[in-house]
């Protein structure tokens, strides 16, 4: 069974068809990429999968369960984490604290227990802290654990964001343009981290603009153009696909 099944997903904004009857599947253990020019509907697609806003029609199945009507926090609870194109760090919190928020769904201390520091929460806190440090180590930024997350370099923030998402222990990780704002060197780093995450046992679905990143690491690619899926194949075949070359890669010179 596919981990994520997207079926005829459609989103209309007023008269505009942002995403039009897109269907595809993500198999466990894959790195799958969605590419397409700006305004192709990639981020809209992502937002529908993660529950940020509802689809106009169509369905998303995650681990065989329909996600209709589920809010983002409920989707996260089911084991799907995401990152954002313009990294959304929690300001005023250290890198470690940022990652610790990611353990939210896997811990349970509430208001009363937290205020009175119930003995059982001590162990929970320790586990949260330990696990978060482990993840920071996995992403090779443990030396910045106690730095204010927002003062880190862009690439490091990206790594903290990955760690934070992994703290949810997701079976599927959605990455929204992980290479946005990074230079070639940092992009290569991110590519390495993404494969490391996959090897760690997490399935990855990413939306990306940077072709070099996508071609290097993904197992399969979905190409979107004006809200419609125009191709779905391996990187090698996508690069040879005439329609993709024409519409996406811009061989079609206007003048």
């Amino acid at each position, binding site marked *: 069974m596919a981990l994520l099944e997207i079926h005829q997903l459609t989103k209309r904004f007023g008269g505009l068809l942002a995403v039009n009857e897109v269907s595809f599947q993500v198999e466990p253990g894959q790195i799958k990429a969605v590419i397409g020019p700006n305004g192709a509907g990639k981020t809209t697609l992502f937002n529908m999968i993660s529950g940020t806003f509802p689809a106009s029609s169509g369905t998303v199945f995650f681990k065989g369960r329909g996600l209709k009507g589920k809010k983002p926090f409920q989707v996260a*609870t089911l084991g799907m984490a995401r990152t954002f194109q313009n990294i959304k760090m*929690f*300001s005023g919190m250290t890198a470690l*604290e*940022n990652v610790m928020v990611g353990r939210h769904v896997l811990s349970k*201390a509430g*208001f009363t227990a937290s205020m009175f520091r119930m003995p059982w929460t001590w162990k929970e*806190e320790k586990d949260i802290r330990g696990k978060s440090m482990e993840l920071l180590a996995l992403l090779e930024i443990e030396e910045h654990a*106690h730095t204010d997350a927002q003062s880190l370099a862009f690439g490091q923030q990206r790594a903290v964001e990955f760690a934070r998402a992994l703290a949810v222990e997701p079976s599927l990780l959605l990455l929204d343009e992980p290479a946005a704002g990074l230079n070639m060197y940092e992009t290569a780093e991110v590519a390495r981290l993404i494969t490391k995450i996959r090897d760690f046992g997490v399935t990855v679905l990413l939306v990306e603009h940077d072709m070099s990143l996508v071609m290097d690491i993904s197992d399969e690619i979905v190409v979107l153009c004006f809200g419609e899926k125009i191709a779905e194949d391996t990187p090698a075949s996508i690069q040879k696909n005439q329609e993709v070359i024409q519409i996406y890669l811009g061989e079609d010179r206007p003048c």
Partner: protein
Amino acid sequence: MKNLLTILPLLAVVILVHYLTSATDTMYYLTQLTMSAYYALLIIGLCVLMGYAGQISLGHAGFFAIGGYLSASLTTHNLIPYQDNALLAFLESSGMLVSGHDLYGEALLVVSPWAACLVAVSSAAVIAYFIGIPVLKLKGHYLAMATLGFGIIIYRIVLALEYFGEADGISEVPAFVLLPGLSVSGNFSDRVQNYYIAWGVLLFAMVLLLNLIDSRVGRALRGIHGSEEAADAMGVNTSRFKLQTFVLSAVFAAIAGVFLTHYNGGIGPSEAGVMKSVRYVAIVAVGGMAHLWGTLLMGVVLTFLSLRGVFGSYDDAVFGIVLILIMLFAPNGILSLNIRHRIKTIFGRGKKRREEEV
């Protein structure tokens, strides 16, 4: 544990102030310091709501009034006329009522302060819960106006209902006997005792909130403030956390209302006024929003000065000016200007040490 320890220096200051006033024969300051502590209790609760959960409330005087007025009316209204009522008989037999005689020697049957306190605080919590569900869906101006509207409704109700004494408010509220020999009252002989009760309650509340901020819940709240979208994506049920914080801060406000009413022996409609709510928001802003220590300090200092009448007839104007100046020049609070960093390093040291142990 750590937060208990950080409270200790403050406890020392509280004791020191007592000895200083007693040595310099200025014990009358303790009265205003006691009242300031109760107002500060409300204010630190509001601080968590505004600074950490990021929700403004211009109606917190309303919750204070719900606590104070319910407690005051229940403990003063004579229930003798309804004595035959079965419910009342049950309440009386379960010890929730106290009987006595009023000034003119008439028989008096009223709700006991403990029971009244419970009713008052839980009413505030329930009201906050049901108001909070729709109100907290709003943002920005809408949220500000909606909470302001709530505050005005409460003000109108206490002003309009005879049960709440209309413009005169409620007076002759009895002492609140917490434990035998320990009571919240305005009696001259209980002044020192009450000073310690008030500050004890405040410091205890402070420990609770410090614990809260540095916990799973606190991180979630700060996360919501930092980026609601990202917190949502991390599985934080943002609306539930906001609602719970709203209720928590309402409970703090109600407790402050109950205690201060018993301490003052009465409550009047001005306590429910919009200006009071604005003042609380101002103090939280001056303290630096997401800064419990700053808020506590400013809450005590500003209310103390205001209660001492230092600002005279310009009291409200002073708060208005302070509010504007802070928002114009130091939106991160007065402590952000210079000493905040130092305070952080002092209180942050313990934190770092512990993190290094891990």
